[in-house]
């Protein structure tokens, strides 16, 4: 039997909302795919595009950046900066030919455990038909 491809997702979750949201999903025993490796960051605004490129470079099949809803940021405006920065990052990744589905951004509040599970489920379902991400993955050719 051929084993089904299981995508590996790196999720940058902001400490104040999305991380708490994923926690809520956990403690509420909601079921969602185990493909995510969460990385807690202090704010979605602190996610440098470099982190995203690096995650793909180290072999992530998909990258999710998640923060508070606009207006709810713990640092007042971090997620607004994130929105600009990540919009450009997304456009750039698409421009060089990475599938647009591989990089996602979402707003998940601390109360939205349900939404978090839904986003992960959708993400995994979208990534499965794409197969492993080999474009930006490190290939030591020397």
């Amino acid at each position: 039997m051929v084993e089904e491809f299981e995508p590996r997702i790196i999720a940058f979750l902001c400490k104040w909302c999305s991380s708490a949201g994923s926690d809520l999903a956990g403690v509420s025993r909601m079921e969602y795919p185990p493909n995510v490796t969460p990385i807690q960051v202090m704010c979605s605004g602190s996610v440098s595009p470099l982190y995203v490129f690096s995650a793909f470079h180290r072999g992530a099949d998909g990258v999710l950046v998640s923060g508070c809803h606009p207006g709810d940021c713990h640092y007042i405006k971090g997620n607004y900066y994130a929105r600009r920065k990540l919009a450009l990052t997304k456009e750039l990744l698409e421009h060089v030919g990475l599938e647009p589905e591989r990089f996602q951004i979402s707003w998940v509040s601390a109360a939205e455990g349900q939404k978090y599970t839904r986003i992960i489920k959708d993400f995994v379902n979208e990534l499965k038909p794409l197969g492993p991400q080999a474009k930006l993955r490190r290939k030591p050719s020397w």
Partner: protein
Amino acid sequence: MVNIEDLKAEAKRILKGGNVKYIIGYERPSNAWKANPVFARTPEDVDRLVWDPSCIHNLVRFVVDEKRRKAKEKPVDSRPIGVVVKGCDSRGIVVLIQEKFIERMDVFLIGVSCESTGVVDERKLAKKTVGTTVLKVKFGERMNYVVTTEDGILDIPAADIIADRCLECIASFPVVSDHLLGEKSKRDVPKPFQSVEKMESLPTKGKWDFWEDQLRKCVRCYACRSVCPMCYCDECVVDTINFAVTPETTAEEKAQRIKWLEKSPADSENIFYHLVRAIHLAGRCIDCGECERACPVNIPLRMLNKKMEKEAKELFGYDVGFDAEKPALMSCYLDGDPGDFIR
């Protein structure tokens, strides 16, 4: 039209008065049609200055170097430096002021208008003048260039040999200057992003195949970084060597150091480097085309930077390098920024 004598007179005036340290401009070397950058330190040097379509270089890079030099200078000579700037170069100065890298009074800008055209693309000109040697290129009266070759004078329409970036230039005159030469003449650019739009129409796979082919060539000489007036970071993510390793540095410390990418010019490392460069230049690149000109393997680097410029314009209505008072693209936001890509 820019009268070169006016340029020289102004340059002489400020050098004689001791208002500036030196003036960076263009000169014609004795053996080629292409202009070279020149540092005019005395009023006599000024006679070497030229202005014609072969003045391709962006001299703003020297302003960045000057700041570095000034930091080590003793005693500090805080006079400004004079720079001859084209339209694109002046926008580079605006971005540097906007980012507070330099102050407005650090530079004395002698603005020169590109006469509604631009500068010459070396390769395009070479194709037009096969079998002869170009001696001189001059601006013509009506959007043309007068090319003097060994076999006579050619009159070539500007659109045929103009650099790619100038075809998409929306302001072919300096936006800031202390002394402006020539007219602020605007040319109609119906499609300022046509090269990028062509690229965008490709499917995902087509885009990737294109970039993989192009970036495979990269030898990581970092010429694009060295020549770029906006690449002025003291430490670059690609140079892990910048972090000092002393005898006290333990093996564990070394292992803990973040190494974002390898130095080897492998495909995956190349694309990583160029992605980082493109995102760093988003909203800062003024499209002077120096990276592409300096690239020894002809990677169309402008296509990456132009894409970022396009998105800055389309998503956030941000024009790069026109207003030094405005905050930089990434250091501001609007409530109405598009967010429809967010789940």
